[in-house]
Every structure is written in structure tokens, then in C-alpha cells.
């Protein structure tokens, strides 16, 4: 009985108890839910030491779990976000139906994720992966019938990923007669070359689905935007990182030994960059805050995939840094949108307007997340971006830099769009009674916002963990070579001092703010109706906020690019696929029993594998 048993046990037990507590009363359920997360997280962070190992026995298969520094890094993201989003979801989900079910799945998906990062063999990895997938699927369809189609898209793509992963596992087992990941990385080079490349590609496919890489991203925007926002914070912030986690392992342990190493890396890096570019462009033209952020998540994951795929030391640091930071600011952004949805009743950017004075704290955290998302110094989003660029440039991927840079610059466009449309612009009477979100929702957001600033000045606190994780993966210690507590280095020895940047920024800002506040009484607040409308009076039925087709000129400029709109073909493809797999729908119809059958089928297959049925 060690901390791994305890954590997983608390999470699993908490999930079941929460479901039953719902029958008793809502308060008990909420308490159960939040205490499960908090206790699990607290125990985990206090007690967990790397190299802890645990073994479960499950019907003939031995599931071995363990913790290393890479897993620890990702569990920081998972549990950290889980605590914050857990508190957030209490007021957010208040008054909705079927909450026991929701919270159970919530906890189950955390359970799944924690299992993944602790898995030491492929079977347990796969089992936890599926638990995570199903629980997240059930939350995606939680919002009702409309979500069903979206859920089917999600589960179809996940199944694709799962099947390819399963196939890879079968192939590994057929070669090595072991499920252990350690054995896999040790014995990978002994496999035939064709097996090596096939296994690597299959696993990459499986993980790329979760990480929403470009050809496989189609499910992501819908699924992200349809789950309740308190879960999407987890979904986009942590769950998608499981794909990154898988990719990191694949690239470190397998791809680097491949003879086709270079081409695989380049291809995936380019796919990541194209994901970033295209998803950014789609995000720019979204009119719904959730959709916009969903596409933005896809774009950010594109940077991370590129970083992972390049696979040099600094690019790996960059990718992991970006993973953590993306988890923070994107979770925060989704929470902001959730707060706005709860308070103002909509997330339609063409309807929302002028909430800044109603929801100042929400705006503050949105602003901080936006600056971090755009990668602007002095916030922490900059650190990862900087390292990514440096790695790409020093690695010779010059055109890739330009593509990523384009995506990043175009990112300012949607960042501004979402901030402007929700919080700025005209203050209209229909949002007159909007209030700031409850404290339980605001505090997690503000905490993340402040953390973004803190890590911006002292990125070393995060880089320390990343460094440990890299050492586990076989990279040399990078502290002092690539970073110090407040300084970043590139391949040529040039450096950036983050704390100085932060201090300078704050000094200038505060000085000018004092100048501005001097003789404060000369300034006067006027309402947004008192603007110079060319001398005309504003009319009630006319709209002076600029909302529709926000980036029309940009759209016109890139219209040659948009002509080959991939999503169009994808939609056709997806439609065709849905029609073709019409019978599949009967299986994936959202009915619990069918999923039970699905689960059992997978387990049976696994058991069969375990008992050497498929031995070649």
C-alpha cells in the first residue's frame, strides 16, 4: 500500500461515492467531490516521491504502475488544474441535472489521467487511456441530444486512436513478449525495421488524436466547446496533454532510434506547424468564444507537437514548458468563458459586449491569460515560445520558424477578438444586471493569472521540474546550459533575463500609471454611449459595437489560402464516414449498456493477448 494505491484508490472510490452521494443530497455530493480531489492532490504532492512502484493484478494481467519525473510533471498539471477547476465547477455546475454522473466522470477522467502518467506497462496504459476517453466522452455528451453527434465524432476518432494504439501494443507484444514500457524502450532496436516504423507511426497516430494534430483534429473544436466549461478547462488543459505525454515517450524512446528518424520528425513537426497555422486562422474567424478557444487549443497543441517532434534538448524543454503554460492559461480562459456564460447567459461573441466593468476580476484573469497565450513578455507564455524559436532556429528549421511565427502573430488577432468582444465595446442595457462571478469561480482564475505573472519572472521554478523529467528521458542536465532560475540561454549563448524584463515592465507601467493618476480629478468617467459618433446621438436600436466578421480585411487578404479550406473536405469526409459507419452508430449510440459491451470487448481482447492467443 503506497501512495500510488492511495491516490488512485481515493480517486476511484471518490468517483463512485460521489455518484451515490448524489442520491443523498447535493451538498454531500459537492463535498465528496471536492474533498476527493483535494485529499488526493494533497496526499499526492506531500507523499509522492519519484520511483515509487505499485503492482496490481487484474485477471491474469499484471498492471505495474510507477512514478518518475516525467509523470510527476504531468501530474502537476493534472492535479493542479483538477483542484482549481474542481472548486470552480461547484458554483458553475450548480442547478444542473444529473450532477452525480457528471462528477463521477470528472473524477474518473482524473483517475484515468493519473493512471496514464503512472503506467509502466502498455496494458495499464491502454486501460487508463480508455477510462479517460470514455469518461470524457460521457461528459462531452452530458449537455444533451445536440451533443450526441459531436460525441460520436469524438468517440470515433478516439476509437481510431485506440485501435491503432492497440495494434501497436499487439505488435510490440508479438515481438518482445512483454508489455513493459521499459522493455519496449530497451528492446526497440532489436525489432525488425519494418516493425519499428510501423509501431512508432501507429502510436503517434494514437496519441496525435488526443493531441489534436491537424489531420486528426476534427473532433476537438466541437468536443471542447460542448463539454461544460469547468470540465473543458481540464479537457483542453490536461487531458489533451496526455497525447503530448504519449508523443514525448514515443519520440524519445522509439523515433530517435529509427533509421527514418529525420523524416518522421520533420513530418510531424511540419504537421504540428500546419496545425498551429491553420487552427489559428480558423480560430480567428470563429464567432463563439468556446469554439474560438477550442481552435486556439488545437493551435497551441500544434506548437507543442512541433517542439516534441524536433526533439532536441531545448525544444523538448520548450514543448514541456508550453504544455504546462498552455494548461494554465487555456484552463483559465475556459474558466473565464464559463464564468461569462454563467453570468451573462451566452458565449456568442456577436452578442456579448462591454462586461469589463461588471466582471473586472474575470477580465483581469482573461487579460493575463491572453498576454500569456500571445506569448508576449513578461508573462510566462513567452518563455516557452522563445525556447521553441531558439530550438527551431539553431536546429536549422528556418521555414518552420516562419510558419510558427505567422501562427503566433496571427494569434494576437483572436486573442484581441475574444477580449474585445466579451469585455470591451459598448455597454448595453441587456447586460446591465450582470454581476461578477461567485468567489469560488473567481479565485481559481485569479490564482492562475497571478501564477502566470510569477512564473514569467521566475520560470526556473517550472523549468526545474522539466529538467528532472528530461533527465529521466535520457537528456543531460540542462540547468546552467539552457536556463537558470531567471535567465534563459540559447544555443549560441545569448541570454534573456526574465526577472529584469518583469521588473522593467512593472517599473515603467507603474511610473506611467502614477503620471496618469496624478490630478485624477481632471479625468472623468463617461459612459460608452458618450462617444464621438460623428456628432450624432446614439440610438437604442442601433449597435455600435463592432462584432460581425471581425477580421474581414484579414480574411480577404488570406482568401487564396482559405480557398483550400481543409475543414470543408474534412466535413465531407466526416459526413461520408458517418454515413459509411452508420452501423457503428448503433454501437456508439450513447447507451450505457453498449459501452459496457465495448469495454468488455476490449478487455477480452487484452486478455486474449495476454494469454498469447495472438502470438505470431
Amino acid at each position, binding site marked *: 500500500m503506497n501512495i500510488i494505491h492511495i491516490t488512485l484508490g481515493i480517486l476511484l472510490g471518490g468517483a463512485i461515492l460521489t455518484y451515490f452521494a448524489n442520491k443523498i443530497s447535493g451538498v454531500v455530493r459537492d463535498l465528496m467531490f471536492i474533498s476527493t480531489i483535494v485529499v488526493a492532490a494533497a496526499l499526492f504532492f506531500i507523499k509522492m516521491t519519484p520511483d515509487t512502484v505499485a503492482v496490481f493484478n487484474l485477471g491474469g494481467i499484471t498492471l505495474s504502475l510507477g512514478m518518475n519525473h516525467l509523470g510527476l510533471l504531468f501530474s502537476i498539471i493534472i492535479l493542479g488544474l483538477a483542484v482549481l477547476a474542481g472548486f470552480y465547477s461547484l458554483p458553475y455546475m450548480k442547478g444542473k441535472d444529473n450532477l452525480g454522473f457528471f462528477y463521477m466522470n470528472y473524477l474518473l477522467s482524473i483517475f484515468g489521467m493519473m493512471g496514464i502518467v503512472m503506467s509502466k506497462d502498455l496494458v495499464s496504459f491502454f486501460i487508463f487511456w480508455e477510462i479517460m476517453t470514455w469518461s470524457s466522452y460521457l461528459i462531452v455528451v452530458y449537455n444533451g441530444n445536440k451533443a450526441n453527434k459531436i460525441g460520436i465524432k469524438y468517440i470515433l476518432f478516439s476509437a481510431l486512436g485506440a485501435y491503432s494504439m492497440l495494434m501497436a501494443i499487439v505488435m510490440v507484444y508479438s515481438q518482445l513478449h512483454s508489455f513493459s514500457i521499459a522493455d519496449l524502450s530497451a528492446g526497440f532496436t532489436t525489432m525488425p525495421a519494418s516493425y519499428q516504423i510501423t509501431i512508432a507511426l501507429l502510436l503517434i497516430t494514437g496519441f496525435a488524436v488526443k493531441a489534436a494534430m491537424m489531420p486528426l483534429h476534427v473532433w476537438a473544436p466541437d468536443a471542447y466547446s460542448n463539454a461544460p466549461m469547468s470540465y473543458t478547462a481540464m479537457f483542453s488543459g490536461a487531458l489533451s496533454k496526455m497525447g503530448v505525454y504519449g508523443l514525448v515517450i514515443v519520440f524519445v524512446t522509439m523515433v530517435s532510434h529509427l533509421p527514418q528518424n529525420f523524416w518522421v520528425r520533420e513530418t510531424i513537426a511540419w504537421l504540428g506547424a500546419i496545425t498551429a497555422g491553420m487552427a489559428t486562422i480558423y480560430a480567428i474567424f470563429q464567432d463563439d468564444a468556446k469554439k474560438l478557444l477550442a481552435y486556439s487549443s488545437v493551435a497551441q497543441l500544434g506548437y507543442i507537437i512541433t517542439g516534441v517532434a524536433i526533439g532536441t534538448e531545448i525544444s523538448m524543454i520548450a514543448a514541456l514548458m508550453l504544455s504546462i503554460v498552455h494548461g494554465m492559461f487555456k484552463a483559465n480562459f475556459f474558466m473565464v468563458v464559463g464564468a461569462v456564460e454563467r453570468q451573462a447567459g451566452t458565449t456568442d461573441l456577436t452578442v456579448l459586449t462591454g462586461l469589463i466593468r461588471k466582471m473586472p476580476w474575470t477580465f483581469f484573469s482573461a487579460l493575463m491569460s491572453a498576454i500569456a497565450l500571445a506569448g508576449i513578455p513578461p508573462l510566462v507564455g513567452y518563455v516557452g515560445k522563445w525556447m521553441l524559436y531558439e530550438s527551431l532556429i539553431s536546429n536549422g528549421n528556418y521555414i518552420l520558424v516562419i510558419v510558427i511565427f505567422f501562427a503566433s502573430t496571427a494569434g494576437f488577432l483572436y486573442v484581441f477578438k475574444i477580449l474585445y468582444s466579451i469585455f470591451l465595446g459598448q455597454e448595453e442595457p441587456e447586460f446591465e444586471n450582470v454581476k461578477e462571478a461567485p468567489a469560488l469561480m473567481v479565485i481559481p482564475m485569479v490564482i492562475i493569472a497571478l501564477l502566470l505573472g510569477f512564473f514569467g519572472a521566475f520560470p526556473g521554478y517550472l523549468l526545474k521540474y522539466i529538467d528532472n523529467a528530461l533527465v529521466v528521458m535520457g537528456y543531460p542536465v540542462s540547468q546552467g546550459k539552457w536556463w537558470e532560475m531567471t535567465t534563459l540561454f540559447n544555443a*549560441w549563448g545569448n541570454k534573456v533575463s526574465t526577472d529584469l524584463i518583469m521588473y522593467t515592465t512593472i517599473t515603467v507601467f507603474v511610473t506611467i*500609471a502614477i503620471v496618469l493618476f496624478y490630478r485624477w480629478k481632471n479625468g472623468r468617467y463617461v459612459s460608452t454611449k458618450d462617444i464621438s459618433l460623428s456628432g450624432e446621438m446614439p440610438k437604442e436600436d442601433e449597435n*455600435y459595437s463592432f462584432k460581425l466578421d471581425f477580421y474581414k480585411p484579414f480574411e480577404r487578404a488570406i482568401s487564396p489560402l482559405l480557398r483550400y479550406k481543409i475543414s470543408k473536405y474534412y466535413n465531407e469526409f466526416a459526413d461520408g464516414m458517418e454515413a459509411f459507419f452508420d452501423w457503428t452508430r448503433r454501437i456508439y449510440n450513447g447507451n450505457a449498456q453498449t459501452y459496457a459491451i465495448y469495454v468488455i470487448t476490449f478487455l477480452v481482447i487484452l486478455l486474449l493477448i495476454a494469454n498469447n492467443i495472438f502470438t505470431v
Partner: protein
Amino acid sequence: MDFLIKTLGAIATIIVAFIVGMLYMGINRKITARVQNRVGPPVWQNYIDALKLVSKKTSVHHGVMQHLAPAFLMISSMGTLLFIPILRGQSWFPNLSYHGDLIFILYFMVLGSLGMALGAGQTGNPNAAIGITRGLSQMVGFEIPWVMALVAMMIQYHTTSISDLMAIQQQHGWLMFQNPLAFLAAILAMLGMFRYSPFDIVGAPAELASGPISEFGGKYLGLMMSSGSIFAFTKLTLYVDLFMGGASNIVVLLIETFTLYLIPMLYGLVSPRYRTEQAIRYFWGWPTVLGLAALVYSVVI
């Protein structure tokens, strides 16, 4: 003591930048007037304008973001100034130039635009919002050739530090001759960066009634004007550092920056304004081709 000297040096740098930037804008107005067959205002007109704007008795705002917009602008103008070397090999102006590099500068220069955009957005003026969308779109346009030129230089000399680039130019000669393609791409991007005609689409008066700044008056406008002049000097100094090897004393610096400043100014005098999409396509046309050529050149060399 060291800290004190640095602080004083930083303040001195900012003051010099303010004075020189304002002076350049005054000279710009004077030259514009001469080209237009006029006498034009005195060169110190801009100082008077700024003083008047700051000494306005009232200034209204529509909320905290508009109130703080000049502060955000100042971060990127003053901050960038502090992170680039002003003079080469001098113990004067000892600022923070050794703690930032090109990619950092690239991003840091955007913060002001974002803050300004938020401030203008809060006014609720539709003209301001349209102006911002134009400005951000245009920024995506000119950043591409600009970053291409920078990457070309980085890979040519294997450094991202501005002071290193300056030192290298001491040995090898000016970068504008070492990699002329990158210089051309950067200069064309500079036209967009300065937002003079034909790229003054953000605040086009005849179209948007001065766009984002249409609700800013009094001290806000005055501070924004000052920030603009500091930023102009900053950008020029950055170009001088990158392509003309920096300057060893202030006179050379003034000559070099002013020569560069003439390019967007004179080009603007005889050009009508582009529409937004035309401007973006312009930047993605020849400047980007030049930038790519510069990349190829620096890889080959």
C-alpha cells in the same frame, strides 16, 4: 551605486529618445510642408503640442483600460528602448541591453499595441474597433518579412543578441551590405511599422476619423504622442544597430537614424493609402520574397 547609475542612464536614454523622436517628427512636418509648397510649422511644434495636450484641464475616459492604455504603450516603447543598445562600446547609457535578444524584442514591441488596442476597444467607438482590426491584421502582414530578415541575420552570424550583431559588424562590415536582401526586406517591413502612408490604414482620418485614438484626448493623447516619438526613435535605433553596425557616438547615431527615418517619411509623402487587404498582400508579396531570398542567402553563405 551601479544600480543608481543604470537607473539614471535609463532615464537619460528615455529623455534623449523623447527629445530626438519629437524633433524627428517636427522635421517630418517641416519637410512635408516644404514638399507641399508650404512654410510649415516650426520644428519644435510637436513639443508645444505635447505640452498643450498634457496641460489640458479635463480628459474623459471610458474605463480603466482606456485610462491605462498610454501606460501599456509606454511599456513597449520605453521598455524596448531600454533593452536595445543605444551606442556601441560606450559606457554611457548603460542600460539593460545585454538581457534581451531579437526574438524577445520582436514580441515585446507588440505589448503596447495590444494594450492600446484594449484601451481603444473600451471606448466603444466603432471606428476604434475597426481601426484596431486593421492594425492587427496589418501587423500580421509586416511581421512576416521582418522576422524573415531577422532569422536570416541570426543564422548568418549564429547569434540572436543585438550587441553581438553589432560587434560582428565591427569586424565584417555593415549588415546592410553583408546581407542586403535581409536589409531590403526589413526596410519594407519598416514602412508598415511606422504606419506612415501608404500604410496609415489604422487611423485613416478620411475613413475612420483617426481610428483607435478617436476617443483619446488631453493627457492620454499627449502621452500617446510622446510614446509614439520614443518608439519611433527606438525602432530607428534598432535598425541602426542591426544593419548599420550601431553608432559609436550620438552624432553618428542621429545621422544614421535620420537617414533611415527619411525612407518611410519620403515614401509616405507621395503615396496614397492602401486598403487593408492590399497592404497585407503587399507585405506578403515582394518583401516576403526578399525575406525568403535572404534566408536562402544566409544559409548558403
